[in-house]
């Protein structure tokens, strides 16, 4: 990945919300680079700031949110660098969807219920200067075919006439309508049935191969991330605590939280497993703990974890982690893996 050019670069992004209780730190000091054709999966639990981060990337935050620090630099196809946070309303509108599109959770109310699917497509095209309806229609029908929908029927339906899986496909097709470079997927398979989720995942894989867009993939489901991502970033309490190539993260996690997540996720084909949840619950984002935000729940925590925040450091190629005890975590992970693989062997024999 490292050799490819960077499409989207986020540097030191912090986002806070003003709430009745005080300032809520939803995202703090997040930095990452998204390369061309890469899929970056953001994993983390509810309230870890992954959705806020993505809304922040497209500047879709509600009025009570404030982007405090940071820079979002987007490189368009011509190689021109765009500072997203500095865009005025007009260019922002052009930037959205044609350069960076977003696919929301289809089970929710992401499609306007009183408008035909076709009108939503025409609206989107018109907003970006494509006024030739038949051309747009052809493009949409082709995309519908690619996401394995019955093109004509879906084109002329209302959203409520479609099933959850079909709505999700419509959203994907809509997201790709203007051939964006970056597509953000926000939990696109959550709340879908297993078989539907499978076919969506397959569609996504095929589309990526064919169209070559880069994507940011938000999920709380490790399995989906394992399947689709090239790079995985773990978020906890608004920070990226670990980021690296998918195999590194899954087989050699170096952050206690990542390891905890792995240990809490059952795998279907591994036979009997000993799993462990992470004790406690995620911190209150208004009153964040000092030091490493995970230290209260962390079995590896030492004194310095409570007082100072561990910096993000390079652990291996492309793998960064913010944990004082990363080597212990790595060892522990290997130990656990060997135990579970012996269990598997024991079962198979």
């Amino acid at each position, binding site marked *: 990945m490292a050799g490819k050019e960077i499409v989207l670069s986020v540097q030191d992004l912090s986002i806070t919300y003003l709430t009745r209780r005080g300032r809520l730190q939803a995202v703090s000091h997040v930095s990452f680079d998204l390369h061309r054709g890469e899929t970056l999966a953001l994993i983390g639990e*509810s309230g870890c700031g992954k959705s806020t981060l993505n809304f922040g990337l497209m500047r879709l935050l509600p009025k009570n949110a404030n982007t405090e620090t940071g820079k979002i630099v987007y490189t368009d196809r011509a190689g021109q660098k765009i500072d997203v946070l500095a865009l005025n309303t007009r260019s922002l509108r052009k930037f959205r969807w044609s350069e960076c599109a977003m696919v929301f959770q289809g089970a929710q109310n992401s499609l306007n219920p009183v408008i035909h699917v076709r009108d939503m497509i025409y609206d989107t095209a018109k907003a970006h200067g494509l006024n030739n309806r038949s051309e747009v229609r052809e493009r949409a029908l082709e995309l519908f075919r690619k996401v*394995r929908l019955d093109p004509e029927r879906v084109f002329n339906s209302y959203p409520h006439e479609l099933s959850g899986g079909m709505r999700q496909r419509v959203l994907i097709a809509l997201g790709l309508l203007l051939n964006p470079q970056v597509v953000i997927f926000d939990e696109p398979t959550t709340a879908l*049935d*297993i078989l539907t989720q499978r076919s969506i995942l397959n569609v996504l894989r095929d589309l990526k191969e064919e169209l070559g867009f880069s994507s940011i993939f938000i999920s709380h489901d490790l399995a989906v991330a394992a399947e689709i991502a090239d790079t995985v970033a773990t978020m906890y309490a608004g920070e990226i605590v670990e980021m690296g190539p998918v195999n590194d993260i899954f087989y050699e996690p170096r952050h206690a939280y990542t390891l905890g997540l*792995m240990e809490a996720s059952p*795998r*279907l084909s591994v036979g009997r497993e000993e799993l462990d949840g992470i004790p406690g*619950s*995620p911190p209150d984002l208004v009153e964040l703990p000092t030091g490493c935000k995970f230290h209260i729940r962390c079995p590896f925590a030492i004194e310095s974890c409570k007082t100072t925040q561990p910096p993000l450091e390079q652990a291996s190629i492309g793998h960064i982690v913010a944990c004082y005890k990363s080597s212990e975590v790595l060892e522990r992970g290997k130990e656990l893996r060997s135990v579970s693989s012996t269990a598997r062997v024991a079962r198979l024999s």
Partner: protein
Amino acid sequence: MTTQQPLIELRHVHRHFKKGRTDIPVLQDISLAVHPGEILCLVGESGCGKTTTGKIMVGLLAESSGEVLYEGQPIHGRGRKDKSEYRRSLQIVHQDPFASLNPSHTIGQILSYPLKRHHLVSNRAELRRRIWELLTLVDLTPPGDIVNKYPHQLSGGQRQRVSIARALSVNPRLIVADEAVSMVDVSIRISLLKTLQSLRDRFGIAVVFITHDLALAKYFAWEGRVAVMYLGRVVEIGSTPEIIGSPSHPYTKALISAIPEADPILTRRKETLPLRSDDIPSLVNIPAGCAFHPRCPFFVPGVCDQEVPALEPLNGYGQEVACIPLTQGMGLSIRESNAAS
């Protein structure tokens, strides 16, 4: 399985819902038995009727036809006291932690109502002691931090624990956990399930675990059984390792092959079973014969679309499957012509 009398048994239970003028058959011919202390997982996709089955088991919904037996006796036509006892023996933990506790009572109040109502405690000291005990049992410690709080002051996982404690308060023999962990964060799920498991071990409470997540079912019910449901029917039932390790019914095969794994190499190597159609038929319009036949890659024309398959034993280990080609020894083979059509 054991020859012991089942705790609760459904025999040929059907359930319809009326929506406007159309009748929707949500459950068709369900026969299931749960034995004391057993773990049974109901697995299936949304709309397959697993929640309805759970509600019928605990008596929150009435069956349209068929029989529900509690300890071998029909649940209807019981005396008042008897009925109350049967009611209390079967408890349910709902999916949504934000809807399952009444927002206007404190946790202490929520737990005290059933204890007082059924005279499970004789005085106030005992009541307080019991509440303390219940909260400790579900690992909500120290209880003093919880007891005077309102539900909105607790996290989702804590609320689910309170729900479990509430169900425990009446000394149930069976708890139906209806997707009880699906709205809880990944890191907290396992500890919740462990709490449930420890309760089963300590008190011999049977657990019916309803979920759409097969991996979770596998983890939780390794020593129990799994029943796979599709469009209102049980299509396959058997011990968990058998079902997960060697699924028989085409639908189960498809499900298991479709699930992504939290292991990049494993999941990318997995071969998925290609279905003939991605669309789930609606309950209003269930296909004739085997309901899965329009999507089934092993579909045998003239057989699968004619007769509704019944659950029949497949081998000597208590695994049962509802698939005519399988139970009649025809075997399963993918027909190219069908897959193409």
